[in-house]
């Protein structure tokens, strides 16, 4: 869904998930607010497209914090092992 830069309508989401339409709409809105997807309106039809840049930022976020915490815990070990602390 939404891969390869294709556009989808909200109906695609409604059909794909076993949840009430307002629930799905709310999530579409949330993804849109987070700039993970973009919306194009044509008449009464709304088309959605994934924003690959933002999706990369999201996965990068996890990787970055993994590095930050791993490095920090290594350093914490060194800090605790100092005899005069």
């Amino acid at each position: 869904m939404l891969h390869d830069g294709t556009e989808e309508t909200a109906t695609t989401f409604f059909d794909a998930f076993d949840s009430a339409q307002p629930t799905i709409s709310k999530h579409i809105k949330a993804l849109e607010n987070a700039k993970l997807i973009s919306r194009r309106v044509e008449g009464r039809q709304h088309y959605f497209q994934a924003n690959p840049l933002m999706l990369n930022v999201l996965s990068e976020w996890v990787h970055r914090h993994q590095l930050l915490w791993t490095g920090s815990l290594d350093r914490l070990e060194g800090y605790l092992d100092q005899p005069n602390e």
Partner: protein
Amino acid sequence: MNNGSTIVLTRTFSHPPERVFDAFSTAEAIARWLSPSDEIHMSVQGFDFMVEGSYKYLFRVPNQGELELTGRFLEIDRPTRLSFSWCWQEPDPHAGIDSHVLVEFFEVPEGTRLSLTHTKLDGVGMNKRHDAGWNGSLRRLETHLLIHLRK
């Protein structure tokens, strides 16, 4: 928990829980170790170690300038549990993502087993965290949507 947006790390230290906990509880101590590497210098700009107290850290990254991180202490239960919010500031690419860190300290024969859980609660823009409709199944749905989007 949320697939792909939660980090869980465990580490065992050969020191009692109180000592490991205290490394998180003063500006002097945390400045000594909270950084991904020795090249990135972190300085503490604010540190009010009490529930609802805030902190502010500045990371000086070579060739990239300074990155600011702020948060608030949410739970302080020495020496077993500590949690705080965690949010990067502009112009960081992840600015405004309000995430959550929980650190638990377990006494073990070797010393202390530390468990760190970093959850990105609002990472996909669900900033109305306390919205009545926001529950476990919604979260799963959102994860599901994201998995599809990533494919």
